[in-house]
């Protein structure tokens, strides 16, 4: 499908968070989150640590449970219903700050594990799929190595390829470059930019503001469990409205 057609589909809302609240015991960690994400949209979420941004995206694939409100992914509502949860997790991919590759499996096995056991793909087909995505992230030669033998940047790219092997419609990124040495951040961001340009719906929690400016359709600022401000990149960075946003931006854009 061409870039054009994908952009034209962006009337369809794929993620809806309606009045979502979450508590850890007595601690009110997410307060009245309302968010609509259209297909093909790229959203960057930023904010100070403890603001709940990671918690929010982890609620979207049910790694955390929300206690009030609704989360609707592509017409499926996320509840305790196991069938719904599995359906959502098949369509939503996630990349973690610490990669979480399976250290006892080769890179190839890491990628083919889910297609074989969840989508019931034949092994050969799964391996071809895996090699295709390894080439997309530019490290096909590492297929038979183990995660422990790769650098951080390579591991994160493998993690992205692993999620892509399930052909998700939505990708979630939880601070994907925060655990990387500076010289490896670029290679991972390049992959994410390519992914965005191909029309993937993305929610990305990150501190990389250059990436946000380049790729994001919307930037969201969260603090204290609430969405404080959201806007398209230019007005967000050049003209933040809320004083908390201004404070945060002044702190991170200074170096």
């Amino acid at each position, binding site marked *: 499908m061409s870039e054009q057609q994908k952009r034209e589909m962006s009337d369809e809302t794929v993620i809806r968070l309606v009045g979502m609240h979450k508590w850890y015991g007595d601690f009110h960690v997410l307060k009245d989150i309302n968010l609509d994400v259209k297909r093909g949209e790229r959203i960057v979420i930023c904010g100070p640590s403890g603001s709940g941004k990671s918690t929010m995206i982890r609620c979207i694939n049910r790694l955390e449970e929300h*206690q009030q409100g609704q989360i609707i992914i592509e017409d499926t509502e996320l509840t305790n219903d196991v069938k719904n949860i599995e359906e959502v997790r098949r369509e939503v991919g996630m990349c973690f700050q610490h990669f979480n590759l399976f250290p006892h499996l080769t890179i190839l096995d890491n990628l083919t594990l889910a297609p074989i056991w969840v989508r019931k793909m034949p092994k050969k087909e799964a391996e071809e799929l895996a090699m295709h995505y390894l080439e997309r992230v530019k490290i096909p030669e590492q297929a038979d190595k183990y995660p422990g033998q790769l650098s951080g940047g390579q591991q994160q790219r493998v993690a992205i390829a692993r999620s892509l092997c399930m052909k998700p419609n939505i990708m979630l990124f939880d601070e994907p470059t925060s655990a990387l040495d500076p010289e490896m951040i670029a290679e991972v961001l390049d992959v994410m930019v390519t992914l965005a340009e191909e029309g993937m719906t993305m929610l990305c929690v990150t501190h990389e503001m250059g990436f946000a400016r380049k790729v994001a359709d919307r930037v969201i600022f969260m603090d204290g469990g609430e*969405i404080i401000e959201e806007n398209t990149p230019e007005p967000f960075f050049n003209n933040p409205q809320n004083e908390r946003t201004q404070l945060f931006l002044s702190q991170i854009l200074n170096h």
Partner: protein
Amino acid sequence: MAEKYTPGTHPDLPPPKNLVGPAAWIRDNLFSGPVNSIMTVFCLYLLWVIVPPLVNWLFLNADWIGTSRDDCSKEGACWVFIDVWMRQLMYGRYPAEEIWRINLSYILVVLTALPLFFKAVPSKVKGALAGVLLIVYPIVFFYLYVGGSFGLEFVETPRWGGLFLTLVIAVTGIVASLPLGIVLALGRRSEMPVVKSLCVVFIEFWRGIPLITVLFMASVMFPLFVPEDLSPDKLVRALVGVALFSSAYMAEVIRGGLQAIPKGQYEAAAAMGLNYWKSMLLVILPQALKMVIPGIVNTFIGLFKDTTLVLIIGLFDLLGMAQAAATNTDWLGFTIEGYVFAAFGFFVFCFAMSRYSQRLERALDTGHK
């Protein structure tokens, strides 16, 4: 519908009622699904079957006061039995008039060891106290317990028994195995092939055989190994066996500590001009030993439990004493009370020590690295 607040002003609300509080906790932790609920019911049933009869027997229907077995009814535990035999369970057949010597030693140890637990006490003082505990007291207590000099009456070792004997064996084992264990650990890490091989063989030998064979060897073979005129006392033979056995385990614990010291420490000590022994004594060993105190405590717990084996070679530790008391013709039929009391004694010591060791491990984990 929820109220709309301007961004940044949403107050912290309390969670919905059915999420916190006792009812929610019960639902989540005990009845969160069909399998969980069945488990809970099964556990409750187990508790119902075991706990009330146990409490009845141990406390409610038990007999606590009396002097002979007629004071014991059959419905509950006969703690009169324990009461009557308490002295033997604690001290064995040590003469009653001389027991003050043992109690004196206990008090001395507690008084000397108490400051070691307080942070406020300076390190140098703690080191001195530890030295007194580990080096001075063993010698002093030897003369105190055995007697025969300084005006104290001689008490031969076959009369030692009960908890006193358990402590003597376990503590002697640990104290004796510390220096030997250090030497073995250093030897195993040495680069001299002969020394290393000798240490490896020694350690693997003593770690590979059961303690009971060590005790058999000690009581049967030890007399063969020494010249005829030395006929060592049965307790001494057992102590030698236990010390050698324990030193192999101690060596491995200490070796773990030596391995964990970063190479930079060895290098810095060498760079300062310290030779091998000086750098070991002044820099490496103090750090290594402090780091493996939890491991040493764990070894001590194991040794404490293993002392029960001496009853197989005819020494009467706490368990042996309990068994002997229960087979006394006047007091037949109270084996369970004897074992319960012995179990209680061992459990209190071992549990306290293991909790202490866990606490230490947590403290050291955060402190080191």
